[in-house]
């Protein structure tokens, strides 16, 4: 009797363990999209309006006009509020729209906009924007939107940005294993670093 009780407790433990393992274990080595949750932002920033194609009413602004730190820092950064205001103080046509009114409210109160982080890696992962931008945009002459899009998806079609890719280790590695030309003209190829400490330092 006792023996059965003991066994049943053990079995329950095993099943719980196994099932939770199964739920977490499979990390696809794929670049397939993996849509993240919708994130509510203080101001629904229309990426499509700013960066989208002119044919669709966008202004085709370079990603790095606003996310200017991406090429010189490990983070891409959110532009300081003064950058938004720098343009919008001269754009009378949208001055009275609700979002822009809200933007100016923050500016007049000298308060930072509390944006939510959409692409949040765990603290033990160190992803460096500068390295990727320097390699793809400046060495290989890839279009900026394509290079950013490897990880961020087609942001120019979105309003509020949403995570498109899994950003898991397997996903990162799947790209690092591919060969890339070292620069725009060379035929030499190389792949991304596969040392643990490149990201886990």
């Amino acid at each position: 009797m006792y023996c059965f009780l003991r066994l049943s407790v053990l079995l329950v433990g095993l099943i719980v363990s196994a099932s939770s393992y199964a739920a977490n274990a499979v990390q696809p080595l794929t670049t397939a999209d993996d849509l993240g949750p919708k994130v509510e932002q203080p101001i629904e920033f229309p990426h499509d309006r700013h960066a989208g194609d002119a044919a669709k009413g966008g202004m085709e602004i370079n990603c790095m006009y606003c996310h200017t730190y991406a090429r010189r820092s490990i983070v891409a950064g959110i532009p300081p509020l003064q950058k938004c205001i720098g343009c919008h103080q001269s754009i009378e046509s949208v001055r009275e729209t609700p979002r822009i009114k809200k933007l100016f409210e923050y500016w007049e109160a000298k308060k930072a906009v509390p944006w939510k982080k959409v692409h949040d890696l765990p603290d033990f992962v160190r992803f460096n924007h500068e390295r990727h931008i320097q390699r793809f945009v400046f060495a290989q002459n890839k279009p900026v939107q394509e290079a950013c899009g490897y990880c961020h998806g087609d942001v120019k079609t979105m309003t509020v940005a949403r995570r498109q890719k899994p950003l898991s280790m397997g996903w990162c590695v799947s790209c690092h294993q591919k060969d890339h030309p070292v620069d725009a003209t060379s035929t030499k190829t190389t792949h991304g670093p596969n040392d643990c400490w490149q990201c886990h330092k």
Partner: protein
Amino acid sequence: MIENSFNRRDFLKVLGWGSATVALSGCGNTSVEDGKEFVTSYVQTADYIIPSIGTYFNSTCAQCDAGCGIMGRVREGRVLKLEGNPKSSINNGKMCGLGQAGVQAHYNPDRIREPLLRNGDKGEAITWEKALGLINEKVGGVRAENVAFLTGGVSGHVKALLKNYLDALGSGHHYVYEAVAPSVMRAANKKAYGVEMPRLRMDKAKVILSFGADFLGAWISPVHFSQQYARFRKADNGKRGVLVQVESKMTLTGANADRWLVIRPGTEGIFALGLINALAAAGLSVPGDVAAVVKEYTTDRVSKDTGVPTEHIAKLAALLKERSPSLIIAGSAAEGYAHGSQNATAIALLNQVLGNVGKTVEGSSGIPFPQMAPTTGNRQALQILNDNMAQDKVKVLFSYGSNPVFTAPASMKLKENLKKVPFKVAFAHYMDETAVEADLVLPLNSALEDWGTVMPEYIADGAQLNIRQPLMEKLHPGTLGMGDILLALLKQRRPEEYKGYEDFYSYLRNAMVSNKGALGGANADDNTFWEAALSHGMVKLVGSPINISSHVSANGLVVPAPFVEDSTYPLHLIPAVSASLRDGRNANEPWLQESPDPLTTIVWDSWVEMHPKTAAKLGIVEGDIVEVASKSGAIKAQVYVFTGIHPDVISVPLGYGHEAMGRYAKGVGVNAFKILDPVFDKETGELAMHETRVKVSKAGQRVIIVKDEGPAGGNQMGRKIAVRMSSDKVNLSKEV
């Protein structure tokens, strides 16, 4: 039933599977938490500010009074780490552990966040308007001579404002008190050389003889002296300087010395005079009056009095004669006695006889702005204030930058006398022992978010006005800088004079810019001058040099005979000033509590240092809790048995044993200040810190001492990694 049958072994099995699952799920994607964290950008920012890349701003360290220049690494609007400012001629880019802990003073969770007014036993949060109004009302309601301002050492523009405020009140009662200060030495230097703080050129000396001056640990400006010491050890001519330390309790400097001579407490003066006699006997020319005074200090007598073997005295005399210039330093071990002034004078005389004055003991620089010159403190000031409080002469008391309730010996009855003061205002960072007693507590900005200027007392050459500037926004909106508070108080008294200054920053900028000619910015426009001063973190001043004179007279120099034995209190207590905790003002910074004492490796507690012979006599082993009782009180602490101490001496570190202040300081260790006997230096009236006699008795318990040193102690587990040699095997004469 099931509890009985489900045994520990099965439980562990299930637990094992469970934890394996948790570990596995950690490999997945679960830590990506989109939309949970904020990413806050700047509203406005300079082009050079790049997120994730640190920017350095210069300021001035506030952890002790040395005034080292610091650079704070600031990232995303937060100060992360401090480094030394290479432009400062005090520390030349170097920094000590105490300074490193400055960020913990800034981010400390126990900082006071709003003005507190006493309501019974509690502090009630009030607004700044109300607090400042209350001060105005209270100082207006009493006679000016009944207002007293107690501060630690102050300098710069805050000192100038403080003086203006006291002038505006019509009261000159500014008491400057430092719990641990070389006051006796300052007085003796003034008498001997004409300057309080001559510049000690260790880099030029070939031999340093230090009487208990812990210049590598906690004495005056340790970071500066450490660099000088490095040059002394590796001189340009390739000759290595020899350091001899004479003291009763080994300090960090003593542990670094080539020769550590343990001396009977209080006989430092005898030793110095004996050395002069030995030097004269060895052929050094000594003036007649000096020779007459020292001739009775024969090597045999000195050896008997001091406990230093005769051959060491002879060797030391030979060394000093052979290698010139040398440098003789009087530290706390020499000045901490009732005859401390005589000891210090005897040591100054030794410097003079050796011809060091003007070579390794140099004059200082005059300060162009005397109203900003550093005010150095002493214990006598506290004594006078205490007497005045006892006689009900103080009605309103301000306290800033000192914690007298913690540092005053119990025999002063300071806490009781403080209760007689009807209105006490404390400017404080923490609810320390003095703030707890106050009626109104005003929270101060941390040093990393405050404006100010600091003029250090000791600087190698020239003079320097250090800038203290905010490295980041205030953490707590309810705190204010001392300068801002003084300015607000001055506006109450002299509104016409100060109404043009919106805050202390605008006052400071105006005061600096309008004097830019004297501050080395004569040719620069206002903005350029100001920006450069902030960028460098300091302004170099050109002061007229003060020449040093040497006129120590041997006439009337009497050094008393060694202590007589006291059978009730057989041991001498040396309150040790540690490099981390000093007088205890930084005790609430856990890094400092956690960093092991350099000699004993003990952390997070007080200890009683005791010689093995004494311990054996008393039947005490390491870890025994003992009661250390003086005529003025008793404390209980763990014993650490240590050979680096005279058998007649025990030592307890200062700075521990807070009853308030914060979570990391409160209740850790015991307060050795409390049991100091009220014995004073006969000439200066300073408290003689080393005069306390104690008895030690076992209190019954025994603990395991928490320390970094391994269980094998100095045995290195038999591996002989660092080869040890007993000191009498070292032949110092080879060095000559």
